[in-house]
């Protein structure tokens, strides 16, 4: 039973991380109908920025709490800036191009960013500093649920609540919903669509950076390639839940996280990624609109 609970929590932790990344995919898709292939790379850059800042601060002897806060803010700021810039360079000029063009551009961006980090930093796995200490009150159940898992789950819940608040009640959130429903109409009622798209990229990238920071301190090492797999899996989760739907992305991520966790726990860990990819292929074949997505008919 302990093993089952351990797997359950490990699945929930994974799922929360996927959710943080998947939200970026699903928000961007909801607004401009583009699979932002470079999103995984933004998550990787968030993790790298956090790593660099945290290591520098810890070398200069800052206290742990300051390191966590500064590294977290730095990761979010830089990732958002990257997201904003990438949109301006690679997607904005292609807004009226055929469908395949922005996708190819996004793939190019993803390869470019991976190699940029590889060349500027290193190809080795780097040890990520421990940012989350073992809480004393977690002692009795530490063998089932680690302190890091707890922090990840709590942070994810807080971020989700904040995001829901932004989208439901703020002006920019309303503008986002309007833009995703009908871009032309949104322009007509005076919404600056370019600003809404930039805001979407910034928020999505910020969420990915939080995910990057959390997963890096959970796993304890990073490398330039982590964005690829995480990106694909988060995309799987977004599609599973129904791409474009925010609750769908969270639901899909939790299902994917639990599936992976139980599959590796009870079947075999060699094929962990195969499970995720097979799940993706199966969903797209049988229910391309996802669990909570709406099937749209193409009108001529």
């Amino acid at each position: 039973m302990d093993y089952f609970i351990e797997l359950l929590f490990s699945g929930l932790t994974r799922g929360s991380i996927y959710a943080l990344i998947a939200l970026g995919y699903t928000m961007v898709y909801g607004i401009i109908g583009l699979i932002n292939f470079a999103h995984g790379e933004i998550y990787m850059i968030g993790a790298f920025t956090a790593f660099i800042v945290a290591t520098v601060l810890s070398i200069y002897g800052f206290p742990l709490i300051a390191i966590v806060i500064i590294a977290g803010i730095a990761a979010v700021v830089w990732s958002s800036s990257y997201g904003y810039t990438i949109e301006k360079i690679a997607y904005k000029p292609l807004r009226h191009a055929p469908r395949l063009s922005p996708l190819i551009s996004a793939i190019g961006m993803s390869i470019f960013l991976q190699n940029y980090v590889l060349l500027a930093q290193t190809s080795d796995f780097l040890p990520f500093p421990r940012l989350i200490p073992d809480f004393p009150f977690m002692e009795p159940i530490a063998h089932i649920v680690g302190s890091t898992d707890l922090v990840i789950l709590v942070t994810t819940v807080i971020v989700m609540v904040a995001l829901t608040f932004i989208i439901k009640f703020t002006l920019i959130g309303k503008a986002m919903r309007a833009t995703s429903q009908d871009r032309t109409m949104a322009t007509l009622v005076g919404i600056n669509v370019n600003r809404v798209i930039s805001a979407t990229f910034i928020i999505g990238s910020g969420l990915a950076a939080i995910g990057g920071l959390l997963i890096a301190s959970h796993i304890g090492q990073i490398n330039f390639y982590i964005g690829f797999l995480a990106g694909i899996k988060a995309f799987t989760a977004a599609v599973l839940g129904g791409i474009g739907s925010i609750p769908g992305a969270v639901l899909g991520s939790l299902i994917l996280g639990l599936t992976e966790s139980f599959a590796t726990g009870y079947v075999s860990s060699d094929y962990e990624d195969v499970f995720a990819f097979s799940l993706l292929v199966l969903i797209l074949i049988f229910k391309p609109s996802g669990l909570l997505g709406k099937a749209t008919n193409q009108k001529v």
Partner: protein
Amino acid sequence: MGLLKELKKGVLISLWFVFLTFPVMVIKVDPIARTVVWRWANALYMAVGTFFIYFLVQFFLRKKENRKETNDSKEQTLSFIHRILQDRLQRNILIGVVAVVAVFFPQFLSAYQTNVMTTALMYVVLGLGLNIVVGLAGLLDLGFVAFYAVGAYTYALLNLHFGLGFWAVLPIGGLIAATFGILLGFPVLRLRGDYLAIVTLGFGEIIRLILENWGQFSKGPSGISNISRPGFFGIEFSLQSSIIYTYYLMVLLVLVTIFVVNRLQDSRLGRAWIALREDEIACQAMGIDKRKTKLVAFSLGAFWAGIMGVMFAAKTTFVNPASFTFLESAIILSIVVLGGMGSIVGVLFGALILILMPEYLRALSQYRMLAFGAILVCMMVFRPQGLISNIRRTYTFKKKTTSSLCR
């Protein structure tokens, strides 16, 4: 006029990029030795570099705008290579020169050069295969390398267990890859373009992961070695002459591929692909079986990839899953996009540029993947039709009174 404003904008943008690249470019930490290296010079390079790139980009964007305006009034200007290809005499001279170079290439240059050229020619065929899927039929396939892997492992395994030779496996490898293409194609071809891209990417990864993990079947990450080289009526070759033989074989395969793809492009099927790429619904309304047409495109693309897989295994005599990563698919896609989607000459040039350039500019080979990524983005932004774009066959209706009707 507005120069000062432009300069100011350029400075602001370069400052933004210095900020953006600051943590990754400037700081380098060693977490084990606990040292920090501040590389301030990089920030300076970044500032100067982005400042100039900004003006370069502005220049190109303006050129693109101008071209758009002039195109409306004038007829489409043909690129240099197209002018050569349209003139019969010039075209024959060009073909003659290329043929002479191709035939005498291994005589004048070392085995190493020949080997490099063989690799480049393999990418030409791979590019042409993917060109059927992406360029003609408009299906973005990001898992093309899976079929390449299927071909390579078919030869490797058949050679290992049954001792089958290169020539026997060449068609088998192609057919098995094509079968995989159909197997994957059946369920996923209903999907829209971008979903298809992700599913094919997932499929490519599944194949690689299976090859990596299913030890008894594929010998896992260590791969299969000692695969026989291509034979020629049982004659034993030395390594040197075998390389030359492989080269000529590859030239032959390229010619066959170009011939087949060219014929396909102008056939009923080829026109159906292009129609499907442009508008699926209109295409169905015209009575084209969407599913069948897509499946044929998919399986034909896979067929060429399978054949090249067999060739790859025979050339290197060793296969392992590390040769078939997503980056390989990305390289082949870059070739097609750089050359010009749907254009055979374009793919030829694209493959030669992308494979030979990093080979001869060794110092730059480190930046190869960085350049591939940048190429994909820049091509899409500045020149989506590729270096040598495909010219649509147009029927020109000539009468004394009316001038011409294009498209």
